[in-house]
């Protein structure tokens, strides 16, 4: 499948009073047409910032895009002007945010907020946009869409709001949908509904999806490939089956160990990862995961391992082969 988005060596930093924060440190990945890519990692490991960087939504200052490229259909998004980006945002690349409670404008009706995108990008007049908005709300499973249109966000439940956000995101049939932890703020049954909804829409529209989450369980049934991020680095990149069956980075192994599973016996305990993610002010010497790693060797504290291919479609950034204990 042709590549639709290629991110190369993306680096994002923030200037703060405490020092330079190294939020994203040279990540590279590709997204193919119609594919779903999972991005996994703890809070504060650069998942959202890397996506906002691509969209040109990092406020600069204090943010700095220190380097890299984000090639969308072979043109670099990072070099585009605000005006050029405006025509891509929402039309070609759309985004769904984590908290539907705060991502809808409280004083504007749902219909206005969805219709605005349509009028902006699809050259529709108010009537056409209204008509289309009803269809979109129906697509995302909101009952009585012709009435829901004139409701304000506070009249919607959390799940309905996230559906409305999704309707807004898919309004212009985007090529890429970036979903930034869209189910984190919802309860479990609603989470499942939203995942199903996105899957259905993906197949209907044929869009590629980048799904950011810290829940590996959601990714399993949704994504084809998974990127695991830690401290602004990609530490493992593999097909979804490889990640679950054959995780090779100690961080991924720990994440999976911390995940509750149906087939676990009652005696087994969930294993938490000791310690905290590193403070990103100033880059640590060596591997950023070394202080929390079970497999740590001397070299880890000296040199940060590069992302290397260990099998077809499987890359990790680790000095240690966790299966044999040998250095790679």
């Amino acid at each position, binding site marked *: 499948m042709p590549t639709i988005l290629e991110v190369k060596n993306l680096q994002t930093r923030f200037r703060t009073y405490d020092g330079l924060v190294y939020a994203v440190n040279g990540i590279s990945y590709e997204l193919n047409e119609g594919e779903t890519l999972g991005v996994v990692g703890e809070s504060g490991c650069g998942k959202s910032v890397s996506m906002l960087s691509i969209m040109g939504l990092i406020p600069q200052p204090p943010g700095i895009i220190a380097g890299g490229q984000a090639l969308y259909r072979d043109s670099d998004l990072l070099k585009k002007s605000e005006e050029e980006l405006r025509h891509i945002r929402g039309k070609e690349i759309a985004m769904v945010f984590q908290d539907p409670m705060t991502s809808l404008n409280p004083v504007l009706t749902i219909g206005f907020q969805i219709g605005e995108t349509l009028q902006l990008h699809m050259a529709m007049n108010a009537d056409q946009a209204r008509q289309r908005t009803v269809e979109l709300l129906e697509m995302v499973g909101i009952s009585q869409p012709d009435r829901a249109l004139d409701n304000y966000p506070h009249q919607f439940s959390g799940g309905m709001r996230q559906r409305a956000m999704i309707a807004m995101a898919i*309004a212009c049939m985007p090529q890429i949908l970036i979903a930034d932890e869209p189910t984190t703020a919802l309860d479990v049954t609603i989470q499942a509904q939203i995942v199903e909804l996105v899957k259905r829409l993906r197949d209907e529209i044929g869009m590629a999806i980048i799904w950011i989450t810290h829940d590996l369980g959601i990714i399993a049934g949704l994504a084809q490939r998974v990127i695991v991020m830690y401290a602004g680095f990609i530490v493992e990149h593999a097909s979804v089956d490889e990640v679950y069956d054959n995780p090779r980075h100690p961080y991924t192994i720990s994440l999976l160990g911390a995940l509750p599973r149906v087939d676990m016996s009652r005696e087994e305990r969930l294993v938490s990862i000791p310690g905290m993610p590193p403070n990103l002010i100033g880059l640590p010497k060596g591997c950023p995961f070394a202080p929390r790693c079970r497999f740590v060797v001397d070299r880890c504290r000296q040199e940060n391992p590069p992302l290397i291919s260990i099998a077809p479609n499987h890359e990790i950034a680790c000095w240690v082969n966790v299966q044999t204990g040998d250095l790679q």
Partner: protein
Amino acid sequence: MATAREALPGIAEEALATREPLTPTQLAWRRFRRHKMAMFGLFLLAALIVYVVGGAFVFPEKFANYVDTGIKLQAPSQAHPFGTDAVGRDILARTMYGGQISLLIGLAAVSVALVVGVAIGALSGYYGGWIDGVLMRFTEAMLNIPQLFLLIVAAKYLGDKIHNFRAFGREFSGSVIVIIVIIGFDSWMYLARIVRSQFLSLKEQEFITAARCTGTSNLAIMFYHILPNSVAPIIVNATLGVASAILTEAYISFLGLGVHQPTATWGNMLEDANRYLETAPWLWFFPGLMILLTVLAINFVGDGLRDALDPRTMVE
């Protein structure tokens, strides 16, 4: 549904009744109605508007401006319920026509202040950086100039620059425009600061990032997405601004720099009364009372709006 109704007749009836949730405007009106002083202010204001507008149907403007020195300085009587002024004009008719001008000045000056204040505050708060720096220093500079001094100088300098004109079927003194503009350009500063502070906090909200994410332009974000979220403090400030603009007009007119005769305003009627404070108190009592009632009514309404538009106010 039917079974629930049977099981819990009293409670279910209410709970099951399909009630549309109230819109923010309906909620605000509901809170406003419970504010007794605000409702009083609203009725008073309505009555004053009926008085000044309705007056035009009772007396022609010619009558209000008709000079007859033969009946000058007459005390209130049947023929002239509010008395007559120093050149024999009917004070009742003049308070009606003067009120139109005073209210017009109040509303128009606030409109000018709103446009300037919202534009400067919005640009400043939304863009930040050097734009904010320049605009806010300018705002502070304006605040540092004593208002009355600025008004007097501006009124004196611009006083006769604009010709009289006709609108709404009556002749207006050009000085009305001058007064509107100078009051407007002298009272936007606090509004600009309020708008700026609103924009500063609102632009960081996630729904603004979401709006940017759909490709909405900066101008659309400022005026469609952020501004409606900050209408409450703007409306309150503007309402109170109308009262203070009417007062300001009265000051300037009292100093003889305001709207020129024969066009009446409550302010320049007071100026006329200046020399007869003790001998003919009806000259200042009626226009003074009008100003007092109007400012009072507007301030009550403003207070009520402040409470009604604050979502944290509880509806008891």
